[in-house]
């Protein structure tokens, strides 16, 4: 093989690899939250109180700059069960005496796992944190911790 041919071949392979990586990056699938290792496990009251004590520190600890925030397992008492506009189940884990709770949104795939969940049950969910609890003076109410992509964790 001539030197010219070798260079051409190397260049072609190089370009193909770069294009392949670029295509993969562009189309890479969303992170599978359930397959991701849990970063922290808490009772609902604990993370709510952590946020109400120092929201800034809690955001720094749990939120990720690119939205791949911490994966949490939260145990608490089911105080509300609803459904959002995307037909995803939303379960609120909240102690009757707490100011705020943890709102857990399930997915189309995991919705069915909530079928047997009743108000008053104690359950553990796993999901990714999207935002923390706080008193909002404009809403004049406490906002819940929001956890997304949830599934039930069987103990």
């Amino acid at each position, binding site marked *: 093989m001539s030197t010219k041919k070798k260079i051409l071949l190397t260049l072609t392979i190089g370009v193909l690899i770069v294009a392949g990586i670029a295509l993969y*990056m*562009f*189309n*890479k*699938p*969303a*992170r599978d939250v359930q397959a991701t290792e849990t970063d922290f496990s808490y009772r609902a009251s604990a993370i709510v109180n952590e946020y109400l004590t120092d929201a800034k520190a809690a*955001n*720094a600890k749990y*939120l*990720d*700059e*690119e*939205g*791949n*925030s911490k994966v949490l397992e939260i145990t608490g008492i089911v105080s509300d069960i*609803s*459904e*959002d*506009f*995307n037909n*995803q189940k*939303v379960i609120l884990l909240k102690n009757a005496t707490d100011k705020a709770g943890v*709102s857990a*949104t399930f997915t189309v795939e995991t919705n069915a796992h909530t079928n047997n969940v009743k108000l008053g049950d104690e359950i553990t969910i796993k999901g990714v944190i*999207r*935002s*923390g609890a706080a008193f*909002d003076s*404009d*809403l*004049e*109410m406490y*906002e819940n911790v*929001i956890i*997304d992509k949830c599934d039930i964790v069987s103990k």
Partner: protein
Amino acid sequence: MKKVILTMIALVTISLTVSAQKQVSTKTHFKFFSTTPAENIEANNYASVGTITPASGDIVFSVPMQSFEFEKALMQEHFNSKKFLNTKANPKAKLIGKIANLDAVNFTKDGTYNVDVTGDLTINGVTKPIKEKATVVIKEGKISLASKFNLTLADYEIAFKGGKPSTNIAKTVEVTVEANY
């Protein structure tokens, strides 16, 4: 008889106050839609909280920015990153508005009412005044709200300097809002 009338007046007053009080919505949908010749990009958020106060016309929404879901993971990462929405530093967007033509809405009568909402919208830590049209629907005593409006990203210091995002994301995006109270 007098007692009955008094009781009735009291009941009516109570029911009127209830309907005039602040109502909360956790069933919400916010959508961003951007269209360019290169591609259409859509992001959906179902986790916002809103309130409406019929007596004053006050409307508030708090939007958790990391709850926006994109079809492509890379776009979602771009959206959240420091270069764009900086959602770690500004995890929530906020709308504080008021129905300007409150007289046009009868909260006690079923119907569809066109309203003008004026107020302040805070995204990416930047607050700008807004004035948008919305629809209030009253059905069997339940309030719902819908709106569709355009946002100019540069107004909120969301800038795309060069690269793929600058050609593939529109300068103005369409925002769709729906909320059931």
